[in-house]
């Protein structure tokens, strides 16, 4: 019994002791765990803060990056070697940069695009495109352009970086000089219909050379020349021909006028048409064009493209007046010194002319495999369809050269005084003769292009312009001739012959 009591007492003492010891150990462990938990909490909070910081930085970087993605940069450089066969060309072979363009495109918000495209040709930096484009975000059909941009025409809008031959056809270069014009344009292109309508209003004088009496271009900056705005419209539609290809057809029209800049206006055949009331009155620039592009899958891509344009293209004239006074004679008679002066008033004018013209071009393009392309183009341009070739150099308008002399006695007497005997002479020069600007040309262009890849291509092009021969005079010389000099050696182009003006172009293009 004692033993049991002893045991119980012993357990009674040991167990609480053990309990106290275990409990203190547990408490210690709990405290340690709490400490660890606190440390972990702190670490997690620190990490969370760090992650938030990184997230914030990423968000800022993404924001900056998003802004950068709104800017698109593209462009191309065309470096070329050219060999001219024309005898008036010196140097007859040159290395040159034909186009050095960078296109900046910025779309700050969906549907608003700013485009800027300078051409960095050495010594001649020009602004090619500079416009704002507003796209309708709802129907995705309408786009409004304002600024300087391509005129709506197939060959004009077809990028020089994609064109299969080195240069545009002669008729397009003549009626749309510099390709671009300043104004506003509305484009209608419904997303699910292959129809495109373009309506544009332009100043109308972009790229034109308008000469004054001294032969200086008075339109170098392309500032508007008159109050009239020119209208252009173009409609195109593409028919899909199943898996064989497609046919695109279209038409465009130009309705414009330009200040005559003189009083007399001639018809296309150099006959007299009218006298305007003032030099601000206008001459016509109206034409229409019809285009078609056939794409046919025949052992790879094959394309046949063409356009025919005809109408009236007015060219301004000029008029200038000058006067000069010169002493002629002095005579003493009856004690009177009589001075004679001559005032010459010269009016130097060139009439404006409204020329009927026509022109067309046809391209045949064949792609061979992924890398090769051959192209041939035939283009024809008749700048004056109302004057036949044998009349070029003969057809002219010549207002009679008027020379009027008026005597004016202001004093005559017997006293020794000075009197004046003034005379006035009026000279009017006003004529225009057909010439090189009326000569018809047909041009054959052949080109081979090798595509290294999507960015680099090399093109070998050969252009053969053939002038239509003009008539000859009774001395056996052409009715139109132009003189030139190369290195002091004089030469003459006689347009009653075919003038050799062929050009070879070897072009390397890098596009990005």
């Amino acid at each position, binding site marked *: 019994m004692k033993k049991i009591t002893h045991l119980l007492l012993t357990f009674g003492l040991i167990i609480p002791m053990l309990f106290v010891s275990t409990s203190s150990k547990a408490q210690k462990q709990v405290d340690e765990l709490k400490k660890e938990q606190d440390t972990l909490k702190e670490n997690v909070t620190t990490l969370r803060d760090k992650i938030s910081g990184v997230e914030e930085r990423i968000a800022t970087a993404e924001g900056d990056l*998003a802004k950068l993605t709104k800017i698109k940069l593209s462009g191309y450089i065309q470096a070329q070697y050219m060999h001219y066969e024309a005898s008036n060309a010196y140097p007859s072979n040159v290395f040159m940069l034909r186009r050095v363009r960078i296109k900046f495109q910025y779309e700050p918000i969906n549907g608003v695009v700013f485009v800027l495209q300078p051409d960095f040709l050495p010594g001649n930096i020009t602004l090619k495109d500079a416009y704002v484009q507003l796209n309708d975000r709802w129907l995705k059909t309408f786009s409004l352009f304002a600024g300087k941009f391509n005129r709506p025409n197939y060959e004009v809008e077809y990028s020089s970086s994609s064109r299969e031959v080195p240069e545009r056809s002669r008729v397009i270069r003549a009626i749309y000089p510099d390709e671009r014009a300043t104004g506003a344009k509305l484009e209608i292109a419904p997303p699910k219909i*292959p129809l495109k309508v373009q309506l544009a209003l332009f100043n109308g004088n972009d790229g034109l050379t308008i000469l004054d009496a001294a032969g200086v271009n008075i339109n170098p900056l392309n500032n508007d020349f008159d109050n009239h705005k020119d209208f252009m419209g173009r409609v195109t539609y593409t028919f899909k021909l199943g898996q064989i290809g497609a046919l695109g057809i279209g038409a465009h029209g130009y309705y414009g006028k330009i200040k005559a800049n003189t009083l007399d206006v001639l018809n296309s055949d150099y006959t007299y048409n009218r006298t305007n009331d003032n030099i601000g009155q206008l001459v016509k620039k109206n034409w229409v064009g019809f285009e078609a592009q056939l794409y046919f899958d025949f052992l*790879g891509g094959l394309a046949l493209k063409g356009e025919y344009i005809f109408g009236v293209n007015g060219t301004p004239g000029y008029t200038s007046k000058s006067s000069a006074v010169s002493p002629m004679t002095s005579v003493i008679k009856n004690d009177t010194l009589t001075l004679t002066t001559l005032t010459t008033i010269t009016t130097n004018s060139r009439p404006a002319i409204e020329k009927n013209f026509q022109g067309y071009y046809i391209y045949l393009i064949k792609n061979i495999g992924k890398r090769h392309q051959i192209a041939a183009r035939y283009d024809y341009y008749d700048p004056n369809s109302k004057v036949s070739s044998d009349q070029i150099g003969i057809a002219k308008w010549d207002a009679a050269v008027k020379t009027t002399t008026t005597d004016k006695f202001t004093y005559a007497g017997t006293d020794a005084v000075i009197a004046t005997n003034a005379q006035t002479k009026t000279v009017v020069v006003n004529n225009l003769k057909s010439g090189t600007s009326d000569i018809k040309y047909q041009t054959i262009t052949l080109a081979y292009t090798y595509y290294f890849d*999507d960015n680099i291509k090399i093109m070998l092009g050969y252009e053969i312009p053939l002038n239509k021969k003009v008539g000859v005079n009774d001395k056996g010389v052409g009715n139109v001739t132009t003189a030139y000099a190369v290195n002091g050696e004089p030469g003459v182009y006689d347009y009653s012959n075919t003038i050799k003006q062929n050009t070879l172009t070897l072009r390397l293009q890098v596009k990005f």
Partner: protein
Amino acid sequence: MKKMKLKFGIAAIVMLAILGFAFMPAQKKITVKGSDTMVILAQKWAEVYMKSHAETVVQVTGGGSGTGISALINGATDICNSSRPMKQTEMDKLKDRYASLGVEIPCAKDGITIFLHESNPVKELSLKQLSNIFSGKTRNWKEVGGPDEDIKLYGRENSSGTYVFFKDQVVKADYAANCQTLPGTAAVVNAVSKDKLGIGYGGAAYAAGVKHCAVKKDDKSPAFVANAETVKKGQYPITRYLYMYLKNRPTGEMKAYIDWILSPEGQSLVTAVGYFPVK
């Protein structure tokens, strides 16, 4: 004499080996690039086709429809897979470069599926609601019958045809700035499967591990889940064709491959992968 025979023997073997290699039919390689949505389908086609056409190698890569079309234009691929029709500007580039408008071959149909987390109580959404969600006008699930929590958006990168198609046909505005872009529909599905508040979109073939949300044209219309029947009947409102684009009409091995894709055998794989046949 024996040595001579041995030499002749070796020479004959070498000659035969050379002749053998020379006359061995060369492997024909077809490269396919483009839509990520179509990658699993294109890979399946390639895998099955190559089993029965050992002489042909079909190499498939993704990158997105836009990337595929660019590759077609710059000559880096023979076939471009695209989950959207080619844009006019892209067609113009092809025209300028190859004097060809390309060949468009619809090869499958797809219903763009709206992915939700399996625990999300929302069962259906209208096109208008989807537009508001993905454009950022609707930001809380409560507004469309879900919990009072922020909506987490998952979408595709802008080179993706699905991105363009969904934007043009459903969102009809810019995507919300907080829409997380992911490379491929599989990544979108994966993200939504892990995010209770997530919503994403993508090809029907990828919708494993997430809930399919039924879609209705408007509030009054019935809602449908994308499946063979609803897509075929035109009931599911977000359907589209999946295309293959070529530079020119196919010839030779390429023609054989495309003909096979459009054959009942090729089209049966469309269904097997989770899309819908064109015929």
